[in-house]
């Protein structure tokens, strides 16, 4: 998103509705400049060229903390 570009108020309302924020028109108008700022700042992330091994999140394989009993112990 360029410096002068920003999404329309209707599109912004769709975003806030999807997040179930239930904002009034006054709140929408107040929040949108902040959103536009962050949208401009974060657009760079979609342009990054990352590899398949640049995995973001790992699901820990261990169940130790849940302390399941061994089947033989039941």
């Amino acid at each position: 998103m360029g410096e002068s570009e920003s999404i329309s108020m209707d599109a912004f309302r769709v975003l806030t509705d999807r997040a179930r924020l239930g904002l009034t028109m006054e709140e929408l108008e107040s929040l949108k400049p902040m959103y536009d700022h962050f949208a401009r700042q974060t657009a760079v992330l979609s342009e990054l060229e990352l590899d398949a091994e640049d995995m973001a999140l790992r699901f820990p394989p261990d169940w130790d903390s849940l302390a399941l009993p061994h089947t033989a112990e039941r």
Partner: protein
Amino acid sequence: MTQTTTELCYLTIREAGALLRDGGLSPVELTRAFLERIESLDGTLQAYITVLADDAMAEARTAEAEILRGEYRGPMHGIPIALKDLYDTKGVRTTAGSRVMADRVPTEDATTTALLRASGAVLLGKLAMHEFALGGPDPTCGFPLARNPWSLEHIPGGSSSGSGAAVAAGLCMGALGSCTGGSIRGPASHCGIAGIKATYGRVSRYGVVPLSWTLDHCGPLTWTVEDSAIMLQAIAGYDPKDPTTSHAPVPDYLASVEGDIRGLRVGVPRHYFFADDPDVSKDTLSAVETALGVLEDLGAVLEDVTVPSLAYAGAAQSVIMASEAFAYHQSNLRTRPQDFGEMVRARFRIGGLFTAGEYVQAQRARNVLKRDFAEVLRRVDVLASPTMSNPAPRFDEVDAMSTARVPSFTGPYNLTGMPAISVPCGFTPEGLPVGLQIAGKPFDEPTVFRTAYAYQQQARWFERRPPV
């Protein structure tokens, strides 16, 4: 307030610890001095949300009896400290600086609270903070705003605002803060004190109200580097209640501060931290350049380094912090939005507007940042930079977007999880403190402490106290 009270409250943890251990100072006398000073000054500074005078005196009497019986626990025994008001304290209101949690009384201590109690520290009270550890000083949050002891018209930094103000003003000997994007180093820099965010996983976050799980760190703010080492020692280590903590052994941090830094390789990422940016204070850059010269005089070898992915660190930080905060607060944001202050309510709402794809991409970008820093850390031992891009702003200069408009010099190390400390490195012509940030390799807090201590002892900014 008597001369003696001031003298006692200006002792460092290391100095007071030695006196307490040897019987030259009573924990009761010391705690009483701090309570008198809080009574005298905190009406103006507003660093405390809750003062635990009776409990603190009882703890001090216990500490005194134990020391007299020869049951000295170590360098925190009898030391008066305070906690940012997001550390759970059993039976004591813990608000996170928000009306949303105004009546919340935990039934259990945070792990760090428990560790400090076990070390024999005396808990003076709970400290002011920016609401839910985000944003700025918001007069609509429902809690008093801590002020900077160097200039009451200026903010003390945040979000650990009360922690910075209380330590700088001598209202406690050390405090815990928390840090998601710079909330320990920022107040340390703005208040002219030391503050360290240790490696991600080094200190438990169990029982600490979260802002962003993958970025949050806990750590101490103190008058000196060696005091931070002592306080970190008391809280570092694996915690089975926090699965993100590390099993890596905890070294002797206080022992690590001694020793020279001849031959130490110091990387300076000038392209990011010293760029010709109108949003970065020339006074700050000048003070830090002078500090780099001091490191060089001490025998360190400076080297300009480049970390290309710093260009999108701010973007990644914004998406991750806001998205995770929204995930935690979304229910209250929908059902009781009026209980949030205006600044935090807006910032948290933005967190609900990023897509899952943007969040995942931000986390992936973080991996690249780690790789780039790892490449640099193969050649240098530590990295040095300004802690903050500007000295503390006045209260009337701050709004919800203040921190988002200027480059963050602290956030990159929350993204990578590297240890980073701020140590005072001078003052602006207006008398506001400036901080030098030193970051190190993961779990190499000893080298970070050694570098910061060597600088501190040479520059001796700690000898200057605020005009309170």
